[in-house]
């Protein structure tokens, strides 16, 4: 038994159990959350070279599961998010919530499917297995967002479908060309021939749709804004990250030697554009959840701004990039959960309706504010530590434009996130009504505090994320000085 298998098999088992128990299946989360957290912690403490092929079938035929640093931090981050979001969903999707029973029941199997798919994707090195994992996560994501707005979910579905097919096309080309779809084998044999470059291009295009990088982000804001709060939290925290992790594996491991600086630069430029565009859009939103959703568009941008920095000096920017992704997971999950609770208490969906909320639900508003601190990149927080590492790398490399984007993005985040907080703290007599569930604020507060606490463990995190990193193994990321 190894957590590499159990992290996938366990949530699949819970998915079946949730289906079997029907209406009572929601209580399973009380077992699933601690169990999955312990498995994730077990993974973190595995020996550094933890890896094995499923069923004992060797490469190139079989599938290699590997607990490298990236897998460890993403599985742990996803476990924290999913465990706490799941507890919150217990309240959100209870029969007393007033929603249709199909919605309340449908959430749980999709939730576990997403969790299993995300873990499967983080742990595997097989590109076709990643396709299946990607479909598990996308399917669950579409199903979860359909619990909110069907129209937005359908749009998301069609985008995701084409994204998957583009990715699959690349996998097919690679298999035909190399007779393997394993990242570790490709890293050894890949050459810059036409088929490989075409495969890398179409896979990247498909995955950019999945991770919603500007200008392919169109599906994200409506889907994430309209879904029920726990679903939005999972979509922004976890679903978007899987596409990003696959891109990391492609560009910095499988094809590290082929990644042309100009292509990496293009990704960085799109990332910078995403930061600016997403921030401006977030500033212009009237509704609270739309603002939070556009903030995801901006925050995804940072991950790609880090691409050229990692390509140039992997050891410096690697930890900043992964830390940023995990800090965003925690902070954004916290923020969506808090926003969901705030909107339940507020008389409307607009930011203007939040007047006086800080008085009515201080804990929830505090959670929102703490999450905002991490997203803005203010100290002390995971977001700050990540931005500091990235900024350091950018200045070291003389990449002043990226440094300016990192700083300017933080400033813009401060502007758009300060607005709802200021409104919530203003006004003595808003029309807000307190919720009758004081415990509901525990999950967003815990997630936000995790995002803050991450700032104190920057060094430990960097060590963890560097386990088995491609650039740390002898031949560094190819060619680039």
């Amino acid at each position, binding site marked *: 038994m190894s957590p590499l298998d159990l992290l996938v098999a366990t949530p699949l088992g819970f998915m079946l159990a949730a289906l079997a128990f029907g209406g009572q299946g929601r209580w399973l989360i009380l077992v699933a959350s601690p169990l999955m957290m312990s498995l994730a912690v077990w993974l973190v403490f595995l020996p550094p070279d933890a890896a094995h092929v499923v069923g004992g079938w060797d490469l190139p035929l079989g599938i290699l599961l590997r607990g490298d640093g990236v897998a460890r931090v993403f599985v742990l981050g996803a476990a924290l998010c999913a465990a706490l979001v799941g507890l919150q969903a217990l309240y959100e999707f209870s029969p007393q919530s007033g929603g*249709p029973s199909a919605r309340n029941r449908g959430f749980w199997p999709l939730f576990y499917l997403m969790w299993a798919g995300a873990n499967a994707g983080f742990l595997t090195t097989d590109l076709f297995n990643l396709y299946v994992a990607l479909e598990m996560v996308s399917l669950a994501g*579409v199903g979860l967002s359909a*619990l909110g707005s*069907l129209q937005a979910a359908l749009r998301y579905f*069609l985008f995701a*479908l084409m994204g998957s097919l583009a990715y*699959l096309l690349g996998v097919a080309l690679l*298999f035909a060309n190399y007779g393997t779809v394993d990242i570790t084998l490709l890293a050894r044999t890949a050459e810059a021939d036409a088929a490989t470059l075409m495969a890398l291009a179409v896979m990247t295009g498909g995955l950019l749709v999945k991770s919603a990088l500007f200008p392919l982000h169109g599906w994200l804001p409506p889907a994430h804004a*309209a879904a029920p709060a726990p679903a939005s939290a999972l979509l922004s925290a976890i679903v978007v990250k899987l596409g990003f992790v696959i891109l990391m594996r492609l560009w910095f491991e499988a094809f590290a030697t082929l990644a042309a600086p100009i292509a990496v630069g293009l990704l960085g430029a799109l990332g910078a554009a995403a930061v600016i565009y997403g921030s401006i859009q977030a500033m212009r939103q009237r509704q609270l959840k739309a603002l939070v959703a556009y903030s995801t568009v901006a925050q995804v941008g940072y991950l790609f701004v880090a691409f050229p920095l990692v390509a140039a000096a992997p050891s410096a920017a690697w930890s900043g990039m992964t830390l940023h992704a995990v800090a965003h997971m925690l902070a954004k999950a916290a923020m969506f959960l808090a926003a969901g609770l705030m*909107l339940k208490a507020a008389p409307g969906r607009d930011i203007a309706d939040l007047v006086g909320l800080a008085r009515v639900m201080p804990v929830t508003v505090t959670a929102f504010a703490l999450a905002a601190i991490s997203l803005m990149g203010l100290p002390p927080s995971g977001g700050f530590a990540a931005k500091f590492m990235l900024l350091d790398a950018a200045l070291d490399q003389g990449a002043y434009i990226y440094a300016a984007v990192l700083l300017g993005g933080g400033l813009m985040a401060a502007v758009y996130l300060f607005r709802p907080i200021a409104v919530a703290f203003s006004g003595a007599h808003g029309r807000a009504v307190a919720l009758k569930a004081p415990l509901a604020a525990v999950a967003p507060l815990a997630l936000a505090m995790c995002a803050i606490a991450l700032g104190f463990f920057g060094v430990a995190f960097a060590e963890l994320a560097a386990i088995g990193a491609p650039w740390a193994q002898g031949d560094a990321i190819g060619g680039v000085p």
Partner: protein
Amino acid sequence: MLVEGGHVFAVTGAVLAGLGFYSFLVKRHPIRQLLAANVVGAGVFLMLGGLGRSPGGADPFAQALVITGIVIAVALSALGAAMVVRLAACGDKDEAPLGEKREGP
């Protein structure tokens, strides 16, 4: 560059992918887009099959990938069709019964 038997099917697959992609971009009805996506998928599979052709038979690994892919494609297509029908049945006011809005704006 030698054109071999399998290439006929592989190139057909490539053209199918291109045709499907075009249809996906210019058709607006989601059912037609679903159809287009299915054609793209079929093209990708045919490409894989054509390039896996040898005198001794087809590559078993590629065949298994294609079978897995076909089942995933049908699952997604059926979900997409169900979503389109449901959306048509409840019109554009789908957020009212399902969303978390408690009170009207």
